[in-house]
């Protein structure tokens, strides 16, 4: 990595109904693999992955939900300070699309003011069973200023593209918002070695 390549770090959160494929999208993007029987999320707090644009590197600190959304009890701290969010639905489920719209509204109400939101219609490989039309979702996204893509974590179609589009849209200026590497020095807590 050369010296004039700037690194920007962003907190990105995933939201969406249970089983729409949030964890699968993250695993596809970060580890490049897919599990047919992905266990309902457990044990993964964070994953990190970088995207290289022309002269900048964008490092995503990716937060996956932890099952708290199942009873609509996701804690606001989850998306607080997030600069980007991917709201996922399953193209075979209108309910999951309705739920995605609710999440978008919640983010617009409670999230960071300039948060970049992407809407992802997942399980594109199962388009034969589609219940949410591309045009409908596309239109909703445009009206609400969201990025939009239909994806498949299984075939990897549009997965990297989705993250790259988000990376492009994120502001690459020093920011005063917390959570980014540019935040003016809230000192990190000492690591365990220095304290214990």
């Amino acid at each position: 990595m050369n010296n004039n390549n700037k690194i920007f770090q962003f907190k990105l959160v995933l939201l969406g109904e249970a089983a729409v494929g949030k964890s699968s999208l993250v695993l596809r993007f970060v580890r490049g693999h897919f599990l047919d029987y992905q266990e309902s999320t457990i044990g993964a707090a964070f994953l990190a992955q970088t995207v290289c644009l022309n002269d900048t590197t964008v490092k995503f600190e990716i937060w996956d939900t932890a099952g708290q959304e199942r009873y609509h009890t996701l804690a606001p701290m989850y998306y607080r300070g997030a600069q980007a969010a991917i709201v996922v639905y399953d193209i075979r489920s209108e309910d999951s699309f309705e739920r995605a719209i609710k999440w978008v509204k919640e983010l617009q109400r409670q999230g960071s003011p300039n948060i970049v939101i992407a809407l992802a219609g997942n399980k594109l490989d199962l388009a034969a069973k589609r219940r949410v039309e591309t045009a409908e979702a596309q239109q909703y996204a445009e009206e609400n200023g969201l990025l939009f893509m239909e994806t498949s974590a299984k075939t990897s179609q549009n997965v990297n593209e989705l993250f790259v589009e988000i990376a492009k849209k994120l502001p690459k200026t020093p920011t005063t918002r917390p959570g980014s590497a540019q935040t003016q020095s809230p000192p990190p807590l000492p690591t365990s070695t220095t304290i214990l």
Partner: protein
Amino acid sequence: MDEHYDCIVLGTGLKECIISGLLSVEGKKVLHMDRNGYYGGESASLSLDQLFEKFRGKGTKAPPTFGSSREYSVDLIPKFILSSGLLVKMLLHTDVVRYLEFKVVDGSYVKQSNKIHKVPSTDTEALASPLMGFFEKFSAKKFFAFVQDYEDDKPSTHNGMDLKKMPMKDVFKKFGLNADTIDFIGHAVSLYLNDDYLEKPAIETVNRMKLYAESMLKYKKSPYIYPLYGLGELPQSFARLSAIYGGTYMLNKPIEKVTFNDGKVHVTSEGETATADYVVADPTYFPDKVKKSGRIIRAICILNAPIPNTSNSESVQIILPQKQCGNRKNDIYVGVISSSHFVCAKGKFIAIVSTTVETENPEKELEPAYNLLGPIVEKFVSVTDFYEPITDGTQDKCFISKSYDATSHFETTCADVMDIYKRITGKDLVLTIHPNILQQQKEQQDEEGSEN
């Protein structure tokens, strides 16, 4: 929810969330419920509209001059985190520290002779401070050196005293310290709320002084740190930990009935009943199993300017020792934070004044502190009862936490958590990093390493 769990936790205050997280990490099956629709219970941070609703009645909205409601996240219980204290150890033990960002509190001040003074950070600084002008520098220096060198298992550092037996007042006497010095050490450094400690074994005070000094050394400006977006982030972070390790979360669950029979706890909410080996709860869930032992007054004040005489600090603690406030037994604390902590609109400051109630007119008791704050734009005052469980829970399998006390930090909060943990498991909570957490950290490091 009609299932059996190892543990059912009621209430999502900080203590309950830490316990829930600790148990889940150890592989216990936890169901965590709250009657409210938000996390945090008493230890939540509220938006401005929520704050107005709570104190001024349903439907009340904050006036527009305060800026947007969502910029606010106002703590109901004011505290700072001692940077070498137990909460930091718990945050590291569980790796929950990764969900949060902190800022160092700018300074700690203490009132003496009608003025506020910065609490010195080192003994050298102490000797240069105007505060020290009030007391005899030489003996104080000797005493600080003794405390710094003291080690439990090195009798040569004990100066011939048995600190586990000797009351603190005798140690002060031995070093020939006068009343002002003692007051400063007991209240501004050891952070005692009243003078009861003077009769107790000196070791506790010595340990508190060491904790203060260690915390101070970490970031120099003050011994405290504070999480961005308010203290309400703390319970939520531990709740996330619990959920990641399989804990089930349900909010908005009124608890209708809790019964204890055939060796199990039965908890009924909205007609459904879950069972568990034991239950953990805050005192509001078991009014019959707790007793009242005092009252605390807290006044949340919104200001348009920093506190006078604090060098425009964005965050400070001010201690008003009891003796500096007329005839009091308990200190008054002021904790100030502001927009740089993302807890209020730009240009606003939140000062929370609190103390243990001593009279029938508690608000009058806060006057010496109000007088330090400059103009107060809006004030929300609450007087709450302090509850503690009647029994330790080992018989009825019902482990109840104490209410949050008037101390300005989380040491007693964490001590209660550790005590409950021990009552439940019979083991001491060891605050090194948990092996299950280490395993996960290792997997993640391998991953990040293999990217390149």
